[in-house]
């Protein structure tokens, strides 16, 4: 069958078009020729076509994408990209790869990867889009038009000044597309761009891709999702490094053999095991107290105004399965964390596995609460989103043993539980391998085994199958079915409605943190479909209108930047830091008044939102009060005012307390004001410019500035990840705060290793993203989207601040 399909590709109408990429008998090996990821592969990409490459995990499709994007060269065969022969089929290793031709070709090839977050390089949308054009050395005038144009192509024109790290995955992926489009590529290669998105996000990407080809950009879309291939002009199916089918989507996708080729799961085991479902339910569903009961539960994040969950009610009997569905950001993960006592609700009561976690029944005494929590960890298992990120041990077996070991089982019992969990997930053959050497799907199974090995009565899973290929998904579904038969209660959040239909007795539909529907799965899923359908219909119909409205609104919302925000960041950075450091020199009332006046003046010039600044410095103000109290009591000069036993209150004490508190306040408020009125991009631009004299000493100041800017951008990402890992390991009973010294050390390792592994994983993705955006350090002439220029206002500001600093420092002399 495969042969006939390959032939049909030859009769395609695209023959006459020019090609943007041509591979001839290309082979690629990761292990020096023992096995071949790509095996003698020949293919072309035509200008302006939408080509979809389908294949299971391990079929070689990502390797092919990497070769097409010019990031890697094959071991054998000829590669031609954007009309240049970049890799020729000669035995002369020295001349085989033409790195200069590769470099030129890469400038016209865009690449978008799976993880949307790791492709963002800075904290302002338009600056992020400008990064690629800057690297290409485009003149600034041209950037000022191509950056907004690229954002318009992905419908983000109203978000120019937003912070991309706070956007949804779908929006981030559209931003990544815009960053690529701004470089005006002749070909775009996308490696599973929708794998980490929900259905709505995938749909957005899909419709943008269809528009692109209309403009003449060739699109190579790599995916394992059949649905995404339907809109392509041409489909290639890859299996074990060979093309096994090629042709129009309607020819390929209706073929009988295809599901096996792209790893669509075998349906039979699922339907077989589901027959005994009802028996299992009645066996365990003794109608005692419910396993999970939530009444009027609300929760909001400490730093956000709106509620993440409001007035959620649910009741789940032991042995039943509940699915939580809804779009990204609807509150599914928060609900899962509340059930596992990883967060406490603002109001309402929660009872899980017979333990009151929140509400009036919750014990007041600390030791009782701690005891409850310990019992909860034994009874409830928590599989976080992307649980493979929590793996840390040297071997798979050791990692799985972590939970049972923490629960206090003896070595034999631990071993028995580990063996059983591995058998349940069919991974016994991996026992002695390092978890870091496994594929993504295998790692997921190992992580889940680590939770299952604790034999929980209730298992809570947060999107357990997200971005897995169909085979691995099927394996997890099979596990949940077995656990269900054994009487385990299951709460699973998912955005795959099929999983809910297959497994859940009841389903909860969340939208913006509110219960939209709750009841039998079939009905709730129906409602979810309606929700998604009306949503897309609304978007399609009113798309143009709302976009215009948004533009108008954005224009009205955007106040002109304040005086302080318009200043050159270099002028601000230097003068503010000097003012902060010299605050410690303040020691007389006159100096203090002067400094306070200047600070108030600066706040006025910034029209600073006092509330948000107060919020950001709240923690420090408490510290300051404590310090003031301390100073009040240790200083015993001046007139005695009062005394309580050993504590003496004096006039000197009061003055010192006020002075030190004011110094502290000045510093904190000035720092907060600087951060508030300066974007991280401006800050790093200023650093780069101020440090540039050091480059004469051989210090790589440009690179260091980029490192700093990327680091600032990754803080929220890593912060969230550290938090998630700490929670996941806590749910497995690992705690740094209690237990013996060796237990605490073990817990510290179980957190630190995955945290470092995560940082290295992001770094790996980020370096690819930097390559895709043609970053070459100082080799090429980089241009700048933002101009730094000291204007008259800046000079005036510097003069005023210099005058203040001089007055402050010289005052004691007079």
């Amino acid at each position, binding site marked *: 069958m495969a042969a006939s399909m390959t032939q049909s590709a030859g009769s395609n109408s695209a023959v006459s078009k020019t090609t943007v990429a041509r591979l001839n008998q290309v082979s690629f090996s990761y292990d020096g020729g023992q096995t071949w990821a790509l095996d003698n592969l020949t293919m072309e990409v035509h200008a302006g076509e939408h080509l979809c490459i389908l294949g299971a995990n391990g079929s070689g499709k990502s390797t092919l994408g990497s070769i097409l994007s010019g990031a890697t060269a094959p071991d054998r065969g000829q590669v031609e990209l954007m009309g240049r022969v970049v890799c020729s089929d000669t035995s002369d290793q020295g001349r085989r790869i033409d790195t200069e031709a*590769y470099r030129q070709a890469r400038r016209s090839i865009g690449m978008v990867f799976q993880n949307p977050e790791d492709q963002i390089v800075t904290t302002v949308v338009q600056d992020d889009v400008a990064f690629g054009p800057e690297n290409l050395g485009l003149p600034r005038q041209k950037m000022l038009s191509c950056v907004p144009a690229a954002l318009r192509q992905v419908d983000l024109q109203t978000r120019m000044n937003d912070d991309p790290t706070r956007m949804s995955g779908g929006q981030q992926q559209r931003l990544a597309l815009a960053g690529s489009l701004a470089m005006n590529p002749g070909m775009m290669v996308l490696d599973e761009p929708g794998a980490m998105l929900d259905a709505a996000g995938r749909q957005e990407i899909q419709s943008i891709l269809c528009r692109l080809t209309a403009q003449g950009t060739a699109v190579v879309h790599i995916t394992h999702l059949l649905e995404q291939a339907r809109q392509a002009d041409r489909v290639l199916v890859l299996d074990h490094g060979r093309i096994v089918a090629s042709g129009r989507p309607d020819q390929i996708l209706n073929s009988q053999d295809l599901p096996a080729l792209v790893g669509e799961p075998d349906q039979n085991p699922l339907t077989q095991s589901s027959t005994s479902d009802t028996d299992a339910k009645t066996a365990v569903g003794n109608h005692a107290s419910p396993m999970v009961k939530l009444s009027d539960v609300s929760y909001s994040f400490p730093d956000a105004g709106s509620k993440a969950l409001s007035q959620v009610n649910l009741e789940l009997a032991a042995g039943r399965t509940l699915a939580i569905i809804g779009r990204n950001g609807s509150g599914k993960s928060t609900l899962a964390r509340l059930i596992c006592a990883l967060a406490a609700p603002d109001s309402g009561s929660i009872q899980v596995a017979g333990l009151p976690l929140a509400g009036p029944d919750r014990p007041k005494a600390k030791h009782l609460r701690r005891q409850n929590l310990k019992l909860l960890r034994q009874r409830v298992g928590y599989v976080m989103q992307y649980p493979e990120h929590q793996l840390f041990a040297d071997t798979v077996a050791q990692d799985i043993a972590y939970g049972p070991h923490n629960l206090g089982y003896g070595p034999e019992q631990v071993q028995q539980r580990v063996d059983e969990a591995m058998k349940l997930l069919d991974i016994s053959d991996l026992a002695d391998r390092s978890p870091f050497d496994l594929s993504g799907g295998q790692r997921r199974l190992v992580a889940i085994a680590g939770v299952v090995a604790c034999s929980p009565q209730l298992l809570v899973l947060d999107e357990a199958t997200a971005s897995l290929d169909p085979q691995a998904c099927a394996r997890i579904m099979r596990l949940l079915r077995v656990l269900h038969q054994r009487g385990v209660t299951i709460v699973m959040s998912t955005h795959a409605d099929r999983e809910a239909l297959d497994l859940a007795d009841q389903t909860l539909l969340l939208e913006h943190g509110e219960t939209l529907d709750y009841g039998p799965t079939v009905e709730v899923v129906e409602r979810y479909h309606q929700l998604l359908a009306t949503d897309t219909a609304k978007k399609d119909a009113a798309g143009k209108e709302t976009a215009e409205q948004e533009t108008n609104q954005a224009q009205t919302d955007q106040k002109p930047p304040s005086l302080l925000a318009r200043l050159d960041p270099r002028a601000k950075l230097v003068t503010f830091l000097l003012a902060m450091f010299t605050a410690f020199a303040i020691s007389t009332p006159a100096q203090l008044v002067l400094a306070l006046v200047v600070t108030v003046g600066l706040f006025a010039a910034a029209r600073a939102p006092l509330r948000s600044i107060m919020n950001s410095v709240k923690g420090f103000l408490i510290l300051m009060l404590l310090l003031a109290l301390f100073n009040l009591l240790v200083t015993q000069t001046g007139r005695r005012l009062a005394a309580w036993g050993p504590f003496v209150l004096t006039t000197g004490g009061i003055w010192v307390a006020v002075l030190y508190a004011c110094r502290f306040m000045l510093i904190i408020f000035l720092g*907060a004001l600087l951060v508030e009125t300066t974007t991280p991009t401006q800050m790093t631009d200023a650093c780069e410019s101020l440090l540039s004299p050091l480059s004469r000493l051989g210090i790589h100041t440009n690179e260091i500035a980029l490192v700093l800017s990327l680091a600032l951008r990754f803080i929220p990402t890593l912060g969230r990840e550290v938090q998630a890992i700490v929670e996941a390991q806590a749910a497995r009973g690992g705690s740094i705060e209690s237990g013996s010294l060796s237990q605490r050390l073990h817990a510290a390792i179980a957190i630190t290793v995955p945290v470092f592994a995560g940082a290295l994983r992001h770094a790996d993705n980020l370096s690819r993203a930097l390559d895709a955006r043609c970053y070459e350090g100082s080799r090429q002439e980089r241009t700048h989207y933002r101009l730094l220029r000291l204007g008259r206002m800046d000079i005036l500001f510097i003069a005023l601040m210099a005058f203040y600093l001089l007055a402050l420092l010289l005052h004691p002399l007079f």
Partner: protein
Amino acid sequence: MSMPNSHSHTTTNKDTRFNDVHSTGAGGSGRWSTKRIAVYALFVALAMVLSFFSFPIFPAAPWLKYDPSGIVVLVCGFAFGPAAAAIISILGFVPHLFTNPFGALISMIVALALSVPAALVYRRMHSRKGAVIGIVSGAILGVIAAILCNVVITPFYAHMSMAKVVAMIVPILLPFNLMKFAIHGVVTFLIYKPISKLINK
């Protein structure tokens, strides 16, 4: 992951990823490879994030807090050499400049005193023994730097004479810092092997 080892620090672009048969020159044409930039950036971000995860460990002085960022600079020094350790030690505390300028400077000095000597020793003695000697010597210098800086800075915050602060060294500053650097050292020693495997992958 492939990263240059510490020896190639001044002669850049020796990354194995860019010298193998599959290299197209992507990422390796700058003075620093994109890989190096990305790894440094993530380590700086990690040091920043962990420096905010601080908690008291010494009941007698609850205002002195432990934060795990020292582990990041030690690991980075072992993996990528003294220059990398210096970069992470300084950049990792930049955000604190805007809330606690002197505290940030002290943190930088202490991190440098800890990580750079440790990285220098480990570069000479690339073994378990070298790692231990590196950590111990770094920790000793770190403790000394921390105490000296504290003596200088405390009068800025509290109305105390230098002599009073010096009197606090033995009962408070010394035990706290010994505890702090012991935790840094032990955790680094235990996690470095698995992490170095990931780095060299």
